[in-house]
C-alpha cells in the first residue's frame, strides 16, 4: 500500500537540516500504524511526504503501486483528493461551513453533484453519530464532535489511506479514547490508517508502532 524506499529530505532554512536520512518503510493494506518519535525526529515530515503535501529529495515513494514524485500541484491535489483522507490535531474544519458542508467539500472537489454529495456526506455523519448536528457550524460543536466531523470528511471520498496527525492532541482523555475507538472501528472496516502521535496510550491502540529516531526507523513494535 505505502512503500517508502531510501527517502531523504533536507530543509534549507538558513542552515541545512537533514530531516529524513534514507528512510525505508512498508505499510500494508488494512494496517493501523502509529508513528512515534521525539520532536524533530522527522515524523511530521514523513507524514507530509506520505500525504503528498511535501516532496522529497531522493528515494521513491509508492502509494498503491504508483510512484509519487515531483507531481504538479494539480496532480498532487487530485491524488490527495482521491487517495488520502486527512485528520488533523486542530480539526481544520472551515469555520463558516456547517458540519455537513465540511464533510461534503472533498466531494465537491471530486466533481460530485450537490444532491449526491450531501447524501453521501449525511451517510458518513450518521455513521459518526452526528446526524442531528449536520446543520451546526464547527463553533457550536465540542472538540470530540469536531474531530468526528473531520474523520467523516476524511472518509467521505473513500480513500486508500487515512493520515492522522495527532488526532487526539487537542482532546481530553475520555474523548481521546472515543476518537481512537472510532478510528479502530474504521480500521476494522478495512481502512488503512497511519497516525502520528506522541501519546503512548493512543499509540498502544494501534496494531503497529513505528518509532522514528533521527530521520530513520528506530524500531517497529507489533501489538
Amino acid at each position, binding site marked *: 500500500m505505502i512503500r517508502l524506499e531510501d527517502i531523504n529530505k533536507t530543509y534549507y532554512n538558513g542552515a541545512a537540516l537533514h530531516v529524513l536520512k534514507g528512510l525505508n518503510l512498508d505499510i500494508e493494506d488494512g494496517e493501523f500504524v502509529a508513528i512515534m518519535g521525539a520532536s524533530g525526529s522527522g515524523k511530521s515530515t514523513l507524514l507530509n511526504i506520505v500525504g503528498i503535501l511535501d516532496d522529497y529529495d531522493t528515494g521513491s515513494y509508492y502509494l498503491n503501486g504508483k510512484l509519487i514524485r515531483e507531481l504538479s500541484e494539480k496532480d498532487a491535489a487530485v491524488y490527495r483528493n482521491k487517495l488520502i483522507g486527512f485528520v488533523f490535531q486542530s480539526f481544520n474544519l472551515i469555520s*463558516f461551513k456547517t458540519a455537513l458542508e465540511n464533510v461534503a467539500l472533498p466531494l465537491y472537489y471530486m466533481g460530485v453533484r450537490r444532491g449526491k454529495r450531501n447524501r453521501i456526506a449525511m451517510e458518513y455523519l450518521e455513521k459518526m453519530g452526528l446526524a442531528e448536528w449536520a446543520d451546526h457550524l464547527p463553533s457550536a460543536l465540542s472538540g470530540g464532535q469536531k474531530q468526528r466531523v473531520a474523520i467523516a470528511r476524511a472518509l467521505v471520498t473513500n480513500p486508500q489511506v487515512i493520515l492522522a496527525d495527532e488526532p487526539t492532541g487537542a482532546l481530553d482523555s475520555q474523548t481521546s479514547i472515543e476518537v481512537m475507538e472510532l478510528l479502530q472501528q474504521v480500521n476494522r472496516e478495512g481502512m488503512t490508517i497511519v497516525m502520528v502521535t506522541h501519546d503512548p496510550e493512543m499509540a498502544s491502540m494501534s496494531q503497529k508502532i513505528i518509532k522514528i529516531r533521527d530521520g530513520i526507523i528506530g524500531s517497529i513494535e507489533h501489538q
Partner: protein
Amino acid sequence: MFDDFQEIFSTLRKNKLRTFLTGFSMAWGIFMLIVLLGAGNGIRNGILFNFADMATNFVKLWPGRTAQPYEGLQAGRRVKLDSTERPFLEEQFNQVYNVSPLISRRGPNFYHGDDYAPGVLQGVLPGYQNVEAVEIRAGNGRFINEADIQQARKVIVLHSRTAGLLFKDKNPLGAYINYDKVMYKVVGVYHDSNMSQNPNSCIPLTTAQLIYNPENGYSQVAMLLDGLETKAQNESFETDIRAALGRKHRFDKEDRSAVYLYNVAREFLQFKGIFNGITLFVWIIGLGTLIAGVVGISNIMLITVKERTKEFGIRKAIGATPGTILRLVMTECLMITAFFGYIGMLAGIGVTELLNHVMGPAQAPTSQEDLVLFTNPTVEPYIILTATLVLIIAGLLAGYLPARRAVQVKPIEALRYE
C-alpha cells in the same frame, strides 16, 4: 458551474459585512462614472441644441478686394461675385449644392404707417431656407418662392421681431410696408434663433438686383456641402475653392482678402473637438474613480486571502487544485464587482434620468442670455454595455493578485498556522 456559484455565494453570504464594504467602493466608482458621463453629455447636448436648427455644413463667401497684384493686375481690385458663380461652383465641386446667393442692404428703416423698425433687407433665393434657420410657423404665410423670383415681385418676408414692431398684434400678412420708398407686400413672417440687433427681412433676389444692385454683384454666396467629414477634408475644400475662384476671378489663391470664406462645418468640428475633450476628461476621471474602486477591492481581497490562509490550506489538502482556488477567488471578486457595480450603475442612471425629468425638455432660447447649456444629461445604451464590460474587466483585475496569493498558500504551513 451552478455548483461553483453556490459554493462562492455561500462564502459571500456568510461574510456579509466584508462583502458589502468591498462592493461599496465599486458601486461608488461606477455611480460616479455614470453621473459624470451623464453631466458631460448634458453639456454636450445643451450646446448642440443651440446648433440644432441651423445647417452645420455650409460655407459662406463674401467678395473682398485683392491684396496682391496678380497677372499684371493691380492690388486693391474689387472681386465681384455674380450669377455665374452658381453654375461654376456646382460644376467644379460635386460636394456643393444649394448655392444660395444673397444681396443685403442695410441703412433705411422699415415703415408701416408711423411705426418703423430697423433691419437688414436681403434679396434671397428660396434655397436660403436650407442654409439659415428660417421657420415659417403655421398661419404665418410663406417664404419667397420661385414665382417671386421669376417675376421679381415686390414681396417681403419679415422677421418675427420686425413684424412685431411694425404690426403689434395685427396680422401683417397682405399688408404693405415701405422700405426706402418702395412698397413691399408682406407674404410671410419667419422665426429664427437669431438674436442680433438687426433682424433680416427677405425679398426675392431678382427684385433686390433690379432695384438696388444692378451692377455690383452679390453681397454673399452661401452653399451647402456634402461629404466633408473631417477637418482635413474641410481644409482641402477651402483651399480648392479659393484656387478655383482665383482662376475665375484672377486673383492669387493665397490672397485671403479677395474672397472671405466662413466654413461653419469647421467651426462645428471644433466644437465637437471640445466635446470630445470633455468626454475624454470625464472618462479619465470616471475611470480613475473606478480604478480606486478596483484597488480598494483588490486590497480588501488581499487581506481576506490572508485571513483565509487556513481555509485555502484546508481546501488544498482535501483536493482543491490551484485552478479551482484561482477560480474561487476571482469569481468571488467578479461577483462582488458585477453585483455592486450594477447597483452603482442603476443608481447612476436613476440620478441622470431624474435630473432629466426634473429639468424637462430644453426650450428654444428666447433671448441671448437664455442659451441652453445643459440638456438631457443621460447616457446612451452603449455606455451601459461598455460599463458592463469595464466591470467584468475590473473584477478580474481586482481578483487576480489576491487569487495568485491564495494559490500560493502552502497547505503544510497553512495547517500548522493556529
